[in-house]
């Protein structure tokens, strides 16, 4: 029996023994997600136990080096994922620490930050948020206004960040600041880390057109940031930011993929509009539903192909821009279609049999897909320049 098979057998047994039954049921909504952090209230004992047990083995970040996380190899990590999928185990932890700032610190250092920050991330003790966008800057990160003034052993940071997800629930922020006001745009930017409890940090949630949201504005008013909390080198934050943005784009690119078990648009159409002689009762909508479903199928296959090509080492590298662009536009079309299919039911906001306007709110929220994480226009620019050689 190969080492990998041994690992699989042991992992399977460990998961069977340690993953609580309630953590093997499908998550029914945002409430079931575990984000951890100092302010976290576990939704159940099982949720706490499951995190603690996985964190103890470092399996919340299984492919990180052993000194900070799980220390599993690429194949072992895959096996762990497969075994977790087999029993439909929930992810023990959702974390911008694991997805974003952790990999960046791992890659860009310095070492003392790895030792300080990675273990608490793995244990789910510290929850992170990101401070990138600023009001007035939009997609233009190079226009960054937040300034960090050099005061010898520390910086004093002043400015305002926007679109900070869960800033009001996070413990630490990774934040882009301008450390050199004289350097030209992209240069002179640094990525710094600070505790959200630092005096001068305040947050305000943003109400979206769809209602309340996880996004906040974050105000930085003479915030003291130690100099040893710079990721990579001072003035080299731009490179790290680009690295992180690509990560983010890949996460968002999943839009338009049908969640397993979710009802298809076709099924929803049949339910909303009904069949007559075996065909959708509204013939113009029928054509639109078919065209959307065909596009969505081709998109799913393309995301699958991109993954297969990446495995085969043929990835075009820039396919993430295309997937981000197409997936988000497709998702917006899907919601327009659902609104049309549901007619006046889609317009409900409050009232009538406890209907909470979920359809309309999701439709409105989808409009942001093609703005956040780099607008569709930015993705098209990237495709034209980097792939098609126009410009």
């Amino acid at each position, binding site marked *: 029996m190969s080492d990998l098979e041994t690992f699989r057998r042991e992992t399977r047994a460990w998961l069977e023994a340690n993953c609580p039954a309630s953590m093997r049921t499908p998550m029914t909504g945002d409430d079931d997600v575990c984000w951890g952090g100092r302010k976290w209230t576990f939704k159940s004992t099982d949720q706490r136990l499951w995190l603690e047990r996985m964190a103890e083995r470092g399996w919340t970040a299984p492919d990180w080096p052993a000194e900070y996380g799980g220390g599993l190899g690429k194949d072992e990590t895959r096996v762990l994922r497969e075994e977790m999928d087999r029993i439909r185990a929930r992810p023990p932890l959702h974390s911008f620490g694991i997805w974003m700032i952790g990999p960046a610190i791992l890659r860009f250092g310095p070492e003392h930050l790895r030792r300080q920050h990675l273990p608490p991330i793995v244990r789910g003790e510290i929850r992170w948020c990101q401070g990138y966008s600023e009001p007035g800057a939009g997609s233009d990160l190079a226009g960054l206004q937040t300034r960090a003034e050099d005061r010898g052993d520390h910086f004093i940071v002043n400015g305002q960040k926007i679109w900070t997800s869960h800033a009001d629930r996070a413990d630490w922020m990774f934040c882009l600041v301008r450390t050199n006001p004289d350097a030209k745009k992209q240069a002179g930017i640094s990525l710094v880390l600070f505790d959200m409890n630092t005096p001068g940090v305040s947050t305000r949630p943003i*109400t979206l057109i769809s209602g309340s949201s996880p996004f906040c504005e974050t105000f930085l008013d003479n915030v003291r940031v130690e100099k040893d909390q710079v990721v990579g080198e001072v003035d080299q934050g731009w490179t790290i930011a680009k690295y992180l943005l690509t990560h983010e784009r890949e996460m968002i690119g999943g839009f338009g993929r049908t969640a397993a078990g979710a009802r298809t648009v076709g099924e929803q159409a049949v339910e909303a509009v009904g069949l007559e002689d075996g065909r959708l009762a509204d*013939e113009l909508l029928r054509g639109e539903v078919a065209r959307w479903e065909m596009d969505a199928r081709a998109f799913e296959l393309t995301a699958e192909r991109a993954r297969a090509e990446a495995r085969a080492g043929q990835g075009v590298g820039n396919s993430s821009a295309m997937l981000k662009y197409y997936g988000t536009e497709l998702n917006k079309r899907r919601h327009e279609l659902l609104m049309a299919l549901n007619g006046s039911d889609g317009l409900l906001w409050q009232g009538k049999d406890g209907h909470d306007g979920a359809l309309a709110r999701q439709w*409105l929220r989808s409009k942001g897909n093609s703005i956040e994480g780099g607008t569709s226009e930015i993705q098209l620019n990237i495709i034209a320049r980097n792939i098609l050689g126009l410009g």
Partner: protein
Amino acid sequence: MATLVLTEEQQMLKDSARGFLQENAPVSAMRRLRDEGDPDGFSRATWAAMVEQGFAGTLIPEAHGGFDFGHVGMGQIQEEAGRTLTASPLLATAIVGACALVHAGTEAQQQELLAPMAAGELLTALAVDERPRHRPELVHTRAEYNGAGYTINGCKSFVIDGHVADRLIVTTRTSGECRGRDGITLFLVEPGLPGVEIVPMVTVDSRRAAEVRFNDVEVPAGAVLGHVDEGADVLDRVLAVANAHLAAELLGIAREAMDRTLQYLRERRQFGVTLGSFQALQHRMAQLFSEIELLQSAVLAALSALDEDDAEAEALCSVAKARACTVAELATNEGVQLHGGMGMTDEFDIGLFLKRARAAQQTYGDDRHHADRFARLRGY
């Protein structure tokens, strides 16, 4: 020949409606109603002022206290109300209700109702839809002759102004198949009658609609509006009128969304230049501009065809509404996208246009419904 350029009189009405609405019912007023959770969803005071301006009587004959100013005139008010997102009983009472009564009401019904409608004192609501997607000839609600009058049973959804109406105009089936044109009869029903149940709800545009249920509701024979079993023709006319005016409102929404977006593109700077200097955005706005120009022509043609009782009127109303739906959808989607993250916040107004646009689109049939209807009218 359609009136494609406003007469001086019509232009004056438009300008004065614009001035009045921008002053008395700007977007901020709509926002306030929403935030205060106003149970009517519109301001009674603003409505009184609109009545003062004569808006309520625009389609009502002078003999009944109105101004008989015609559909082109009313359409200008609607377009301006689209720009300011003004909620009011204009559509349900002054357009739909007035048209139904003028077109199909008996002398007695007109005498009783039109004058108070023109005075803004009596509100009406059309109870037509039974399914989420508009399909006016699908009528399960039954009215059965009971010897003296009729007994109505059934349920209507998305009744605009159903929560405030003094008189419901209800489509029922008095005979025939539930999908057929024949056998549809319209009734005027007082909402206070025993067995009428009204459940209000808030819609995405912060307005109100109601579900109205009829449980053995007894109405006298004189409550029939038009002729028994022949309500479909009246309905065609009333819905054509409603859709032409919804198209006018959507034209206003599209124009306002475009104007605000253009303003933003001209001012907002990114990468050291204004957003408006990016050619890809220029072309999209130029395309949107062209679509709106075509919409304006279609709306004017539909309204003036109604005034002139042109044989093509119903087809033109469907052209106008179908185009209004696709163009307003484009204009508001482009508006939010090009405002970027700011467009996603409740703080900016652009999202309010998005919300109202979809509600107006779905009201009495969206572009698919009207494309289908147009094709049927054209014989294919």
